[in-house]
Structures are given as C-alpha cells and as structure tokens.
C-alpha cells in the first residue's frame, strides 16, 4: 500500500521552506509597514476622522394629470436617526426625543429595534418631524451625541381629488418586504416602495436612485466634512409620470358619486385613455403616509363597505341588460334571424315549468330587435334563444373582453366569470342545470360576473366599432390595441342605431342620460342587475359624440335601483360637465 518510498530531496525541502518563510515575511513586513512605519498617518486618520456612509433618499417622481397639474407631490419632512455605536445613556436620550415629538417612549424604542442593522449604520428613530421639533433637537445637540436628523421626501397630495384607487400608495420597506424583493440592493430599510395603484405599476420609473455621502466624523461623532477619496453621489429623483386623468373630470366624478357606493369611469373610446375613475367609498390618499393611528386604521380595514377595495378593477358584478348588445350580435350573426320579426311581450314567459318575467310586468307588447334594445325588453330575448347556443354566446362575451383582465395599468384585476357549458357542468353537475340558464344568461344575469373595467373596455369597443386600445391611466406609452373583432359593419351600424334609440326614443330607458345639447349625440344602454345580496345594481354605459370628440362612460351604483332612473341621470350630469369644460380636454 504505502510501499512507494519518499523521494523528496534536501534541495526540495529547503527550497519549499524558504518559499514559505518568504511569503510569511512579506506579510509580516507589510504589517510592519502599516503598523510601525505608517502608524502616525493611520492613527491620526482613525482618531480624528472616521468615515460614515450615509444614504440619501431620492424623491419619487411626481404624478401629473393630463394637463400637467400635480396629483402627487413630495414634501420635505425630517427623520431622526441614531448611530447606535455612538449612543450613550440611550434611555435618557430616547425619553428626550419622545418628549420633543410628543410620542410615547416605547414608540422610539420600537422604531430603534425595527430599523437596527448594525452599530454604525444610521438607525431611524422617528419621522415626520416638523421644523420646530428639529430646532429643539438642534438646540440640545450637545446632549444628543449620536443622534442625527436628515431630510426625507414624503408623498403629498396637493390636488382637490382623492383618486386613491388610481394613485395607490407607498409603503415603508421593512425587513420582510426587503427580503422578498428581487432587487434588494436598491432599497434600504425605511425607504418607500409603491405598493398599489400607479405607485406600484410605475415603481421603476418613479423610484429614483439613492444618493450616497461619505462623511468624516471626529471622535465626538461630529461630521466634519466629506471624504476626499469618495465624492458624494447625489440622489437621482425619480421620473415624473403623466397620467390620462383630467383633474376637473376626476374631481367632478368624486363629487357626483359622493356618499354612494359604486364606480364611474369616463374615458376616450378611440385611445382607451381614462379621464377619470372613481371607486366609492374611497379613502384619503395620505392615509398611508404614516400619521394614522391604529384605531383609525382598523376602522377603515373593517368598514363594511370595504373602502380599500378597488371596485373598478376588483369588484365583480352581474352586468344585467347592458350586455344585451352581445346577445344582439349573437342573433345578427345567425343569417336565419330577421331583426324586424316581432315577438310579443306579455310581461311573463313560461319556459318548461318555470315562469320568467320581464322587468316591465305589464308587458311591452309587440317588439322587434331595435325596440327590444331601446326598451330593454327581456321577453323578446327569451323568445329568440333558439338562434344561438350557450357556448356560442360565451364566445361573443369573450370576444368583447369579458372573462379575462383588460390589461389596464393598475395591478390586481379580477378575471370575472363567463360561464360555458363546461363551467356549468363542473359547477352544477351535468344534470344540475337546464337550458333555462340561457334565459338568464342572454339578459346578463345568472353566473355571468364582470368588472367595471371590463365593461368600460366593452363600451369602448362598441363606440369604436372594435377599434379601441386597452384602457390605461398613463400617457406616453405605446398603445396596445385590443384584439380586432370580426363583426361586419352592418351589425356595428345596427347596434349603434339601436343604442342611439335607447336615448332618443320617447320611451327609451336611457332618456335620462341625454344632455339635450344640439351638438351632442349620446348612445347608451341601461342595466338593472338583480343580485342575490340586496337591491338591484344600477348600470349605465354609453358614449357621447360632441363635435368630433367622443367620450365613453360607465356608471355603476350598487344596490340603488334601476339603471334608467338612477344611473342615467348621473351620466347626464357628467356629460353636461364635459360639454362645459371640453375645450380643456
């Protein structure tokens, strides 16, 4: 095994030993050079100049409305940091700080523990200090060794609107958030990160880049200047974003809907731009900037109306009659169907052993397709279901963008539900549902659920005959076309004519939406969606042509009655506002 003899020679041995000691003595000499020969230089450097690395927060980019008016701004506030390694008599100092900023002693200690990352890394004790408070700290600087303050840009909302679900909010980066981030090194504890709305979607443009400063600090911890070897790097402010929001319209929408629950979205159908969008109830946009108390917070969190939920993206509603134009397409696509054939409405319709009623219980009398749309007759659609089947109708719903996110630039969209026979079989079993479900389906009831953003996109498709762009809140980005719809021009024209009659017809359900202006022409459809949880939801969708411009609108009021009576007048109110201020858009 170990038979091979060692053949190492004396020469090899001495050579190896010499090499070893040569290396060791190079190292010893280098230490000698630093510690003995250059002792004075480094000793001075260590005793009088310690280097501290301080990061400076970059202000986030501004968020502007389409005319450059500021929606989200930054205001300078002060934050108070401690260098743990320089703190003596910690409790005494924390108590003093707590007294100055009017909080409990524990809050300061809690912050200190939360932000602690190392003995010589600035650790945040408090934020949002006023100038007066900082002055008090400054006066007592000699007693507050190890305590420093720094400017910190905080989000501010100077405009009159809330727009809280659009703008979103930022959140302070804590350990958990930081650990979950992909680009960890871009964030430090106490930085802010866009957490919802546009703040989140456009985080990368808004964020900006930290600045770094290297301070020389003397033995007492006083900053004596920059370090020559390391020039400071200034913080780079984040880029501004220009939204499609019109401050005036947004403001008006928020006032109109005021204390109701629901959604209004107003936009430009050709481009998909959103001029204003509200989800009510909402919240003050500065809710998240840190001054909120725990009880206020819990109140908002546990409010039965869920103000934090973004209804236009996440709310799921039965659409009711506003989707009858999809059923209309399904009918017109069948060449055997004749739109001028009349079907009688008695107010009720027996299908199998069930009675399906029309919302107008007295009955509309003889109806053709046009009058069935303008009067929103249900019986007419019940009697014409033989012209398509369940999945055919579903395919038209999907064509109009239902059942999938619209791709709007605010995250967290719901998909909604477009039932298919597969879906119904899975949910109720093969024999658990009948053809009667199609009767609910064709008038926008049943399993069908939509988000208001999908409805907005659908309205834009109707208004542009299928040539709109995806809905969006921020300008200057490449517009994304929605899929082109393969529907013939004849059908589009028929739909447009019928939707005009909804407004202009003597008995049209959408009459209340007409601004009665000679230059304005309105197309629309009302909806009164039954829902299992209470009163009907009122819908109005449509668009107004005013000179050569058009404006689309979606109004949804939760549990407040019929679309024609409640939602249409609100649409009129908004059309009036647009007419009065249209030169600014």
């Amino acid at each position: 095994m170990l038979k091979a003899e060692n053949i190492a020679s004396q020469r090899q041995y001495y050579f190896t030993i010499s090499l070893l000691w040569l290396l060791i003595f190079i190292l010893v000499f280098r230490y000698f050079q630093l510690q003995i020969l250059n002792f004075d230089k480094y000793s001075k450097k260590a005793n009088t100049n310690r280097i501290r690395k301080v990061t400076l927060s970059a202000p986030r980019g501004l968020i502007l409305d389409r005319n450059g008016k500021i929606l989200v701004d930054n205001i300078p506030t002060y934050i108070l940091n401690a260098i743990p390694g320089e703190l003596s008599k910690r409790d005494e100092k924390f108590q003093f700080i707590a007294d100055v900023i009017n909080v409990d002693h524990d809050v300061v200690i809690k912050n200190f523990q939360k932000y602690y990352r190392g003995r010589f890394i600035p650790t945040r004790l408090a934020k949002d200090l006023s100038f007066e408070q900082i002055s008090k700290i400054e006066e007592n600087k000699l007693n507050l060794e190890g305590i420093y303050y720094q400017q910190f840009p905080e989000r501010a909302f100077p405009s009159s609107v809330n727009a809280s679900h659009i703008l979103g909010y930022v959140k302070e980066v804590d350990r958990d958030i930081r650990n979950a981030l992909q680009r960890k090194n871009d964030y430090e504890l106490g930085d802010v990160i866009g957490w919802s709305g546009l703040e989140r979607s456009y985080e990368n443009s808004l964020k900006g880049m930290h600045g770094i400063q290297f301070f020389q600090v003397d033995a007492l911890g006083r900053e004596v200047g920059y370090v020559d070897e390391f020039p400071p790097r200034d913080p780079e402010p984040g880029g501004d974003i220009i939204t499609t929001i019109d401050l005036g319209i947004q403001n008006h929408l928020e006032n109109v809907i005021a204390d109701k629950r629901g959604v209004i979205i107003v936009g430009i159908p050709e481009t998909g731009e959103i001029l204003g969008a509200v989800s009510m109830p909402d919240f003050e946009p500065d809710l998240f900037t840190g001054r909120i108390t725990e009880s206020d917070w819990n109140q908002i969190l546990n409010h039965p109306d869920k103000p934090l939920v973004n209804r236009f993206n996440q709310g799921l509603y039965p659409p009711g009659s506003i989707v009858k134009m999809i059923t209309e397409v399904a009918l017109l696509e069948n060449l055997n169907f004749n739109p001028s054939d009349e079907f009688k409405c008695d107010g009720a319709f027996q299908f199998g052993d069930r009675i399906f009623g029309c919302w107008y219980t007295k009955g509309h009398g003889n109806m053709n397709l046009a009058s069935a749309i303008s009067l929103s007759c249900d019986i007419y659609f019940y009697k014409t279901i033989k012209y398509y089947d369940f999945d055919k109708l579903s395919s038209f719903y999907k064509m109009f963008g239902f059942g999938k996110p619209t791709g709007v630039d605010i995250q967290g969209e719901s998909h909604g539900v477009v039932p298919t026979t597969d879906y119904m079989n899975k949910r109720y079993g093969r024999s658990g549902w009948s053809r009667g479900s199609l009767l609910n389906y064709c008038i926008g009831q049943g399993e069908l659920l939509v988000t208001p953003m999908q409805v907005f996109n659908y309205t834009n498709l109707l208004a542009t005959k299928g040539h709109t762009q995806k809905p969006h809140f921020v300008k200057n980005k490449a517009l994304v076309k929605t899929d082109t719809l393969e529907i013939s021009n004849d059908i589009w024209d028929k739909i447009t004519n019928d939707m005009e009659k909804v407004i202009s017809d003597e008995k049209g359900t959408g009459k209340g939406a007409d601004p009665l202006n000679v230059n304005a022409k309105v197309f629309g459809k009302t909806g009164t969606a039954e829902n299992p949880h209470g009163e009907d939801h009122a819908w109005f969708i449509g668009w107004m042509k005013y000179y050569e411009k058009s404006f689309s609108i979606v109004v949804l009021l939760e549990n407040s009655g019929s679309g024609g009576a409640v939602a249409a007048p609100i649409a009129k109110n908004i059309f009036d506002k647009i007419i009065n201020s249209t030169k600014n858009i």
Partner: protein
Amino acid sequence: MSLININRLREVPIKLLWAVAFLVFISLVILKSISNHYSDGLVYTPFFKQLIILIPAIFILLCFIFLPRYSIHKYAYILFLFGIIIVLLPFFGDTHAKTYRWLYMGLPFGIQTSEFAKVFTTLALARYLSDHTLKMKKFSSVIIPIIITLFPTLIVMNQPDLGTSIVMMAPILPMLYWAGARPFYLFLMIAPIFSMLTAFHTLSFSIWALFLGSIIILARPTLIIAVFLFFGNIFFGLLSPFAWNTLSEYQQNRILTFLNPEKDPLGVAYQIIQSKTAIGSGGLFGKGWGQGTQTHLKFLPVQESDFILSVIGEELGFVTIAMVLLMIGYFIMQIIKFAFLSKDRFSSLALIGIATIFISHVFINTAMTVGLIPVKGLPFPFISAGGSFLITSFLMTGIVLKLSGNYSD
C-alpha cells in the same frame, strides 16, 4: 484497547498542537471582543458559535488520530468522488445570494462543501502520484494530475467561488515538484497565464518575454521546442488583447466581475481603506482589547471572518500579528518537515498538499487585509469564525498528525 489508544496518542507530534491551541486562543479572544457589541444575546454571537464548532472539530481531529494510516490512502479515491458529489449538491438547492456554495440539509446553517472537497482532492492527487512510479521528467506525466484537480475546481469555479478554486488548484504545483517533476515544466504550466495577463501592458510584457526567453535558454530544450515554446507563449499573449476586444462590453464586465466580485470601486476601496486604517492605527501594541474604534465601526462586513486580522491588528497590535504569522509559519514549516522526513511517498505528498492549502489561505487572507491583492473571501486558518473551514482545518491537522507519526501500523 485502551493501551493501544494511549500508544497512538504518544506517537502524535504534540508540539504541533501547541501552535493550533495558540491560534484558537487568539481567535476566541478577539471574537469575544467583537461579540461584546452584539445585543441579540450570547447564543448568536460569533464567539459562542466558534466555541460550539470547536467541539465537532476536535472530535474529527481525534477520529483521524485513531484511524489506521493505510486507510487514508485506501479511501483517497472514494473520498475524492464523495468530494465531487458534495460540491455538486448545492446546485440542486436554492441559491444563496446568487451562489451555490452552501449546502443546506434542513440544518439551521449551511455547509460550504468545497472546503472539504479540496482536502479530498489533495489526498487523491497524493495517491495517484505515489501509486504510479511515473517518469516525472516527462511532461506528459503531469497531465492526469492536472485533470484530477481541474474537475472539482471547475465545479467550484461555477458556484461561483474563485477564491476556493484557486486554493484547490494551488497544491498541484508543489506536489508535482515534490514528486520530482522538472521545475521547468511547472514553469511552462503557468507561463501562458502570465503571457495573457502581461499582454495588456507593453512594458510588463517586454520584461516577461525577456524572462521567459532566459528561462527557456537555461532549460536547454532542443531548438525547435524552444522556438515553439517561446513564440507559442508570445503569440498567446498577443492574441489575448485581441480576443478581449472581440468580446462585448457586457461579456467583459462579466469576466471582470468574476475575477473581482466586488467590482464596485467605491465598495472595494472603501473596505480596504477601512481595513488599513484599522490595522495601521493599532501600532505596536494595539489599542487594547475591545477598544478598536475602527473595527467596531462595522464598516467591514465580515470582520469576524475575512477581516479578523484587521481586528487583531487594531486591538492587539503588531506584536500579536507578528506572533500569529510566525506561529502559523512554524505550524506549516513543521508539516513540510514531516513531509520531508516521511518514509512513504503518499504521506509526504499529502502533507505537502495540505501545507499548500494552509499557506494559500494564510497568504490570500492576510494580503487582502493589507490591500496587497483584491478582496477574496477566504478565511484565516484557526482564527476566522466560520464552521466549514474551521472543521476542515482541524480535519487537515488530524491527517497531518496521523501521517507524521511513527510507523507502528
């Protein structure tokens, strides 16, 4: 049984252990100083962790003392295969800071398997070189040893861990030299690397070319081979700037980042300046235990492991640093001595390999703290905190004690 055990202990060259004890003592003293500033409680301090790790480390050392000598030789190849497997395993786990160095086995800590693999590689190399009576005067004899070493090295380089892969490659030159390879061939092995590196600087390249020429003339090969070696190297060198320029900037940056992971000049320069200031301000006797102002700035991110010498330099001064370096020098010298005195070739080569691993760690770590070489995360034997390498150091010491004892088995 017990009689045999005591005899085995008596065979061991105990004085080596005094050097280890001294270094471990210094380590604990300085880790205690660092740990004084931890507020999380004793259990989480590097001092306490080091104390705990010493238990398995000493246990492993004892295991090797009581192992029959031939078994190290017998299982050298199996250990080598095992080494390759354990350096591959981290690639199947999650990345840790974008690297695959650490193996997690449901334990609260990771194991840096490459530390063990480099010892096993050295043993396998020692066995290969001692089993085969190779004609070491021939150049072709060095090819297989290089392949043996290159295999685990390439894996570790992809983890990526340049520091450890350098240490893994390091033993091959001294071991080949010790096994009788011509120094000229060893020189030829590393010559292309110098040709490539100096090619970016005209003066360095000219000096290198002169040096290379002189060595080749002194070695007196045949004319054709001499011309081939010389111009081959020059051509290689001249080609490399050209090859470099054909790379896109993105690829160049990746190579630079690989060679120097902390490429951010602000980051590296900053650490080195902090380290040098800490060391320089320590002076002859240091600022006193626990009094190092620079050290406790925490600007050095890994002061308990990679930059621990800076802490010793600042708090305990040049006297202690010199003692530490002389002591580790003495320790390594003893290993080399045993390698020379050893009766069999396997022990001799294994000892030289282990001595090389120790000296590589000592030199790279120490030179880094004083800014002689770029920052490479390699720990100092017996002193730096960190489980895997501490255990490996004790494991290597156990092998040294075994292989350098008398020959009762």
